[in-house]
């Protein structure tokens, strides 16, 4: 069954100034002979939240990893702030410094909290003098108040929710231009969820933030744009409220009602 593209998700013309944060054109990815992503085209604004939702196996995480450079076998075109990801000046490492990725499971290095935050900063002297950055990013990640008196304690002594916020701070310390979050609050307590969502909203004021989530309520709370994916394709792309109140596609409606999504 060939999907009909609804007028609502027709890509905006390139000349528009508002949507240069992330431009994806015809992105396809196959791993081990299995099609993970199929012909994805998206435009995301320079600043603001976009949540990506959809059933398991829809390719949401893979999409993030293509933006990051962790997957490299994709076809198509990806532009971040108008720069081609494939020809990123400085190569893959600088690309990954520009794109911050926070995963589902918080993973901290076996060092102190402060050392973790500055870990991405290259150069020992710079790291030593980074106290200002440490405070800034920990505040942005809503963790400063909890750890400001114990920056030199091991990061492993933090709770899971605190560790995840630490990961966010760590990613922010290298001044990325784009933040990707892959189900960041999936295994966390409600308070951490709330704090992280707060941070995300704050960050979205200055840069594009893409957040993959399973939690539809969270997607609603975060606001911004919503992308609904299923089986490697973008089914619908809409503003948050209109997606949840007036889903245009059949598959979206079925998904929101928690029935099995029959897209192919």
């Amino acid at each position, binding site marked *: 069954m060939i999907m009909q593209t609804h007028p609502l998700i027709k890509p905006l013309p390139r000349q528009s100034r508002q949507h240069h944060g992330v431009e994806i054109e015809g992105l396809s990815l196959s791993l081990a002979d299995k099609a993970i992503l199929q012909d994805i085209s998206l435009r995301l604004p320079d600043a603001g939240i976009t949540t990506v939702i959809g059933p398991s196996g829809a390719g949401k995480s893979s999409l993030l990893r293509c933006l*990051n450079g962790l997957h490299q076998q994709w076809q198509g075109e990806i532009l971040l702030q108008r720069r081609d990801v494939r020809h990123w000046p400085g190569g893959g490492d*600088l690309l990954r410094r520009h794109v*911050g990725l926070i995963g589902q*499971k918080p*993973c901290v290095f076996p060092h102190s909290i402060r050392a973790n935050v500055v*870990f991405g900063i*290259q150069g020992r002297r710079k790291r030593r003098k980074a106290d200002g950055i440490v405070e800034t990013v920990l505040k942005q990640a809503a963790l400063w108040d909890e750890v400001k008196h114990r920056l030199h304690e091991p990061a492993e002594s933090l709770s899971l929710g605190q560790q995840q916020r630490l990961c966010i701070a760590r990613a922010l310390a290298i001044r990325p231009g784009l933040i990707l979050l892959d189900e960041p609050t999936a295994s966390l307590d409600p308070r951490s969820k709330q704090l992280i969502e707060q941070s995300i909203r704050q960050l979205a004021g200055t840069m594009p933030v893409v957040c993959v989530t399973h939690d539809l309520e969270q997607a609603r709370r975060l606001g911004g744009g919503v992308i609904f994916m299923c089986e490697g394709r973008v089914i619908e792309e809409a503003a948050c409220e209109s997606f949840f109140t007036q889903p245009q596609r059949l598959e979206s409606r079925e998904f929101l009602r928690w029935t099995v999504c029959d897209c192919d």
Partner: protein
Amino acid sequence: MLRLWLTGSAFVSGMTILVVLGFLIQASWPLLQSQGLAFVTESEWYPYEQLYGLAPVLVGSFWSILLALLLALPTGLAAAILAAELCGGRGRSIVRFGMELMAGIPSVVYGLLGLWLLLPLLESRLNLLTGRSLLAAGLLLAVMILPTLMVFSEEAIRTVSREQREMALNLGLNWPVRLWRVVLPQAWSGIRVAILLALGRAMGETVAVMLVVGSLDRLPEPFYNLLQPAQTLTSRIGREMAEAAVGSVHWAALIMCGLVLALVAMAISLLAQRGQRP
């Protein structure tokens, strides 16, 4: 009946080390009786004149082991990094196989190689009268401890979790930085164990060292001269085991060398075991 076998076996196994130590202590007692602890710093070993200096062999063992570690560590560690990080599964298997092969070569064959390949090489390249020296012993020991170092270091590097590496990758750190700041620091405890095990092996090696070290009980002059024939703890025991009259003080002095060897080796082993626990 079963209990008897099990308990008895465990008892025997456990007691072996105490029995060994006991006999060593008992047999070396005459030396302490006749000389007290003077022999430790005594620099002459001349049994015919009651001189049982331990100093030459302590220095000899020290230099040969140090040299072996200094030579083997960089290249062994590099090989471990290569196998763990840069090779595919196939390459890693080949490297490991090669190392296991080397580990299986009996030490007397290494001695043969040392005697008839290494010594002539040293004599011609360094213009020496004889290649028998601490240098030769150190070189040979380095080759012999490479497999141990490499295999255990490689394991230590491989056990650093994928997540840690991916975290560092996501922060835009390139391979050398990841290796230096994430992988090696976390593999360090395992690498330390590898070094201790290699140290123990180098320390206890007898036959290969016996054949190339020169068996001359004399302090190197100057103290850092590695190009002269010398003696290590193990080579002295090996060479004079058959000659010492049983029960004499000479005999006791040799046993004392064995005791020192055993005690240091046990200490190293305990340290290595403690390093392996976490």
